[in-house]
């Protein structure tokens, strides 16, 4: 239900912002038409708080909510620019986490016997539809507008709230990225939906989405359910869920949605973006091989052999929080709960004791090899191969061995 | 005195801890310790009211301070001792140095001098000790003579030497005890006074960050209004009046330094793997080097805090209690630091770990503000009078209180504490009958036994409370187990050591051992091992490895 209270003076501010053109002013008072989806965009701009939305308790009919949605995040393609820094280009790509969400979502949707839908919002992004289908989407909701070229909290929230209100999905998944973590709670607050942050596991339990996430700095895991409200929403940590091999022949139904987008809804405007990542510096979040060092490496100088090994193996150098705190490596290379979660094919942990907050950030790696002097170091509990010994003696020999092979 | 609330205290100590973490890391302490250097800049920052303003806690609110009460001050002393006892001593010296003003100064003097200490963050020193006058201040040789103008005393000229004065070389103002024509009196001397000079910073075993220096006063002139209280001859009384709580402060130093060493050892024990498991899982290690020290320190905490609350509840003097607190806490702190070195093995013996420094530092707490031996004498003297005056009812009364507590709360070892107090009563009575106090050794050992029995009673009282002091890091299960362990040991020690004392000096009368309650004290030992295992486990839970 939407109600215009007596506070309304007919100022018309809400009229242009309605994505569905459902509001007009008559007799100095706003009037809401049937096109209204209860998206709430008008409430945001009303200075007099004259618009009240009350949503029917979702519990009234949970079965009306169907389908599993994945919010698709695109990212600009970067190219090397001046001074070694990377620069943003106009080209976009799908963030890899989208593939992970669709792959995981596919299995959950099958178990529920419901559709897997991708929500694709942006400008000139239609080209991604087939890619989304290849990772499992049955349907793609496409909203394209010049104003949606870059992510904007207000615009994107308005669009997605409108879609949810209209199509009533059972589940909505978002990536736990800067964008997903900015957008999802805003939507949840508006529609009184449950939202579980930063999940590392998803499954179905008694028809409900069972959401698994770490808490207390990774010291415990919690399983979260949302039994009485819809949709069930979660942000999901990148690099944790497996992505499947794409199936290029699979097609998805395309549903174009054309809400009216008013740029003025965007109250926060981006003045400039700066990329601080340096060209050539391997990023840990997408590396196939990570050679990671901890307190045991001791000095910046002694990190060099790790860098050499990473080069030889075509990987990136990571670091534990202790090593970052000691100033041996920048924060961008930190693996763990308070750094980046990684899932490389090979994780070589050198002189890392394995605090829980580190382990939660790397335990999904395919093969974990740990080198530590202390045979009881907790890192060994997650390692496939545990090498007990001094990294300062072992690593230079390993590097020499690898170089020998390269010749 | 009302003092601060728990939240404010907690916030102040958090600020202190954060400051220390940022500004005084162990590497710096180690370097200053090696160089025997007083960190003047750190002390200046700690007194800076925009950074910490720690000295304000020691100054009454009417003179621009924060009006911390005795409990607040013991708590801040403990917190300081966790950081460095040398720095703690420097702060303490300002407090001690301003004490004669607070206790004996005229209103005018208090307003002027306390106000200046608060506002100008003056470092103060307490100039009592002399080369030939330590705890025995009567042997004072520093002299103050009248300067008379027009038949009126307008000032004094002070001549003499002071020794081992904390902050001596760095203080802005020194309170000097000198023999005036009317008797020992306190004078305020500013460091700029002509004829005043400080000797070199002593090369000490520990607390090397604390400036300790001899002072030379050569015909130093001070105006008449620098005589504290305006009346000559009050000096010794003024000095005595504060021992109750100044000794409590040193007790808190022993507690803080002891815990710092023990925490290091407990955390280390969980990381150090020997023969397939961490040391913390080895009963032999924990029950020898860790648990007994935790128990003694927490018993001392209970006694210190009980005494602090009594002083804040407007009881005066409490010199015997101050002495018991100091003896229990500083000896426990010293022993703990010693054991912590052992607990860390070879590492403990190196300067890479802080425990050897704590050991050197904490030793001073058994020496300054009255040595442990002076404490034993003070305790024995005080309680001997009570025993005689009450005709043996003094400790019987306390034992009866423990009986009642045992009935109410059977899990705190009050029954064992009652056994200790009754045994003490029997021993004191036998000493009286055989006139054994003529042996100084017997008297001083009695001092130690009295401290042990009374500390057991205080611990049982505290452990039976429904809510513990904010300073207690343990739950009731752990703290009550500690209280039981302490009380059991006290019960047996009182019986055995008391009997040994009497036997050593004279005959043991028929029936003495039975009256002593040795059988009950032996029976009370049941369950001791289980309690100690529990404490060992709780200690590793609270002080986790990092």
């Amino acid at each position, binding site marked *: 239900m939407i109600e215009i209270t007596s506070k309304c003076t007919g100022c018309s501010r809400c009229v242009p912002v309605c994505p569905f053109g459902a509001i007009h002013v008559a007799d100095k008072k706003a009037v809401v038409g049937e096109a209204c989806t209860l998206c709430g965009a008008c409430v945001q701009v009303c200075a007099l708080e004259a618009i009240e939305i009350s949503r029917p308790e979702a519990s009234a009919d949970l079965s009306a909510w169907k389908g599993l949605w994945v919010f698709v995040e695109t990212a600009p393609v970067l190219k090397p620019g001046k001074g070694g820094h990377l620069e943003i280009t106009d080209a976009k790509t799908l963030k890899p986490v989208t593939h992970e969400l669709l792959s995981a979502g596919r299995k959950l949707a099958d178990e529920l016997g419901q559709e897997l839908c991708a929500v694709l919002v942006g400008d000139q992004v239609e080209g991604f539809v087939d890619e989304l289908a290849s990772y499992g989407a049955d349907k793609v909701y496409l909203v394209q507008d010049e104003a949606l070229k870059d992510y904007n909290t207000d615009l994107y929230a308005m669009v997605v709230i409108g879609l949810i209100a209209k199509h009533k999905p059972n589940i909505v998944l978002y990536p736990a990225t800067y964008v997903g973590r900015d957008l999802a709670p805003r939507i949840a607050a508006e529609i009184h939906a449950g939202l579980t942050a930063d999940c590392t596991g998803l499954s179905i339990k008694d028809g409900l989405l069972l959401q698994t996430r770490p808490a207390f700095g990774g010291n415990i895991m919690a399983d979260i*359910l949302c039994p009485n409200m819809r949709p069930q929403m979660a942000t999901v940590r990148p690099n944790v869920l497996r992505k499947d091999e794409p199936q290029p022949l699979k097609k998805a139904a395309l549903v174009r949605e054309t809400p009216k987008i008013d740029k003025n809804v965007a109250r926060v405007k981006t003045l400039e973006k700066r990329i601080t990542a340096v060209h050539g510096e391997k990023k840990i979040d997408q590396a196939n091989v990570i050679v990671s060092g901890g307190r045991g490496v001791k000095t910046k100088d002694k990190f060099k052999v790790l860098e050499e090994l990473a080069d030889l193996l075509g990987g990136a150098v990571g670091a534990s929080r202790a090593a970052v705190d000691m100033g041996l490596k920048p924060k961008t290379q930190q693996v763990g709960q308070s750094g980046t979660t990684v899932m490389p094919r090979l994780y070589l942990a050198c002189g890392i004791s394995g605090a829980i907050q580190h382990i939660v950030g790397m335990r999904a790696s395919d093969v974990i090899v740990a080198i530590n002097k202390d045979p009881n170091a907790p890192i060994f509990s997650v390692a496939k191969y545990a090498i007990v010994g001094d990294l300062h003696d072992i690593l230079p020999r390993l590097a020499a061995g690898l170089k020998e092979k390269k010749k | 005195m009302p003092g601060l609330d728990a939240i404010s205290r907690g916030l102040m100590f958090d600020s202190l801890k954060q400051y220390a973490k940022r500004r005084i890391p162990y590497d710096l302490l180690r370097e200053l310790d090696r160089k025997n250097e007083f960190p003047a800049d750190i002390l200046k920052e700690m007194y800076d009211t925009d950074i910490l303003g720690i000295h304000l806690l020691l100054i009454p609110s009417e003179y621009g301070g924060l009006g911390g009460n005795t409990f607040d001050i013991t708590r801040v002393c403990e917190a300081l001792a966790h950081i460095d006892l040398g720095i703690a001593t420097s702060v303490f010296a300002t407090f001690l140095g301003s004490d004669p003003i607070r206790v004996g100064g005229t209103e005018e003097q208090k307003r002027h001098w306390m106000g200046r200490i608060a506002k100008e963050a003056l470092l103060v020193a307490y100039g009592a000790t002399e080369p030939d006058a330590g705890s025995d201040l009567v042997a004072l040789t520093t002299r103050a003579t009248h300067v008379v103008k027009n038949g009126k005393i307008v000032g004094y000229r002070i001549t003499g030497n002071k020794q081992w004065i904390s902050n001596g070389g760095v203080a802005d103002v020194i309170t000097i005890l000198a023999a005036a024509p009317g008797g020992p009196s306190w004078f305020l001397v500013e460091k700029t006074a002509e004829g005043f000079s400080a000797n070199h910073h002593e090369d000490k075993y520990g607390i090397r960050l604390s400036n300790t220096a001899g002072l030379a006063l050569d015909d130093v002139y001070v105006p008449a209004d620098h005589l504290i209280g305006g009346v000559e001859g009050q000096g010794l009384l003024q000095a005595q009046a504060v021992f109750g709580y100044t000794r409590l402060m040193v007790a808190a130093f022993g507690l803080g330094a002891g815990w710092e060493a023990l925490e290091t050892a407990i955390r280390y024990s969980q990381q150090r793997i020997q023969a397939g498991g961490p040391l913390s899982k080895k009963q032999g290690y924990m029950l020898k080097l860790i648990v007994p020290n935790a128990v003694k320190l927490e018993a001392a905490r209970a006694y210190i805090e009980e005494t602090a609350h009594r002083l804040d509840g407007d009881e005066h003097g409490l010199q015997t209690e101050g002495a018991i607190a100091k003896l229990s806490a500083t000896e426990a702190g010293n022993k703990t630091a010693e054991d912590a070195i052992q607990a860390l093995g070879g590492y403990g013996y190196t300067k890479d770990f802080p425990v050897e420094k704590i050991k050197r530092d904490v030793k001073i707490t058994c020496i300054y503000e009255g040595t442990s031996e002076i404490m034993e004498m003070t305790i024995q003297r005080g309680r001997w009078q009570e025993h005689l005056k009450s005709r043996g009812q003094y400790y019987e009364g306390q034992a009866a209180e423990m009986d009642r507590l045992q009935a109410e709360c059977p899990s705190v070892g009050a029954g064992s504490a009652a056994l200790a107090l009754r045994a003490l009563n029997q021993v004191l009575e036998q000493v009286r009958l055989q006139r054994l106090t003529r042996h100084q050794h017997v008297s001083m050992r009695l001092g130690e036994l009295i401290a042990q029995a009374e500390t057991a009673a205080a611990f049982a009282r505290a452990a039976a409370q429904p809510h513990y002091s904010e300073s207690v890091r343990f739950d009731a299960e752990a703290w009550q187990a500690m209280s039981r362990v302490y009380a059991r040991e006290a019960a047996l020690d009182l019986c055995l050591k008391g009997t040994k004392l009497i036997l050593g000096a004279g005959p043991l009368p028929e029936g003495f051992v039975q009256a002593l309650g040795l059988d009950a004290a032996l029976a009370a030992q049941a369950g001791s091992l289980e309690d100690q295992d529990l404490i060992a486990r709780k200690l590793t839970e609270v002080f986790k490895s990092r």
Partner: protein
Amino acid sequence: MRTVVCVKQVPDTTEVKVDPQTGTLIRAGVPSILNPYDHFAVEWALKLKARHGGEVTVLTMGPPQAKAVLQLALALGCDRAMLLSDRAFAGSDTWATSYALARAVKKIGKFDLILCGQQAIDGDTAQVGPGVAQSLHIPQITFCDSIEVEGRKAKVQRHIDDGYEIVEAKLPVLCTMSLPHAHPLPWPSFPKVAQARSKVLEVWTAADIGAEPEKIGLKGSPTQVHKVYPPPLRAKGTVFTGSASEMASKLLDILRQENFIKP
């Protein structure tokens, strides 16, 4: 400028350990602290107050003990503090918490800026800030490093992938602050702590803020914690010991075996 800072008292998670036998959290000896991100938000609120004048109100929801973090904020220079404390709030998830905080902000009155920490270190959700912003119908800027206010506009630096952006918004706006690495947080001096005792600290109940009962506590929380358990550890792998050169060649074998280098 009128600023409201939303803060939370949290257990110091760096001190939390799990009992390996029972899988439960060992809370013994774990101190409660002001969430470090919120501490940074308080620092920013006061920095902006020093530049532009005005008043800073600090707000939290929690048990009576949470007063401690409000006292810290007051000692640091905030002007007044509000504690939402009521058994009816128990069990609130991020939705119900956002709702209650938003109601309280409304009761506090007019404001230009709301600051929150980006997330609390116990839950790590980062959801309450945006939730409050949406409930108040004001714009949000999340994961911020710094804020400049000029007239009625805020210019904010915030994190994005691989870098940062500068954004601009009209006041009122809600910003969630991220905490720069190794940033030294401010701590109050002893006299500032003592002075804070005479500042206003009000305790409000659910009724005081006019909260609808079905929107707070367990009832108002869409999410429910189903189960809590220790993180699973992998089965123990193979352990190798030996000389450095033996270990190095063993590593080469492993890399070969796992197809990271050619045989």
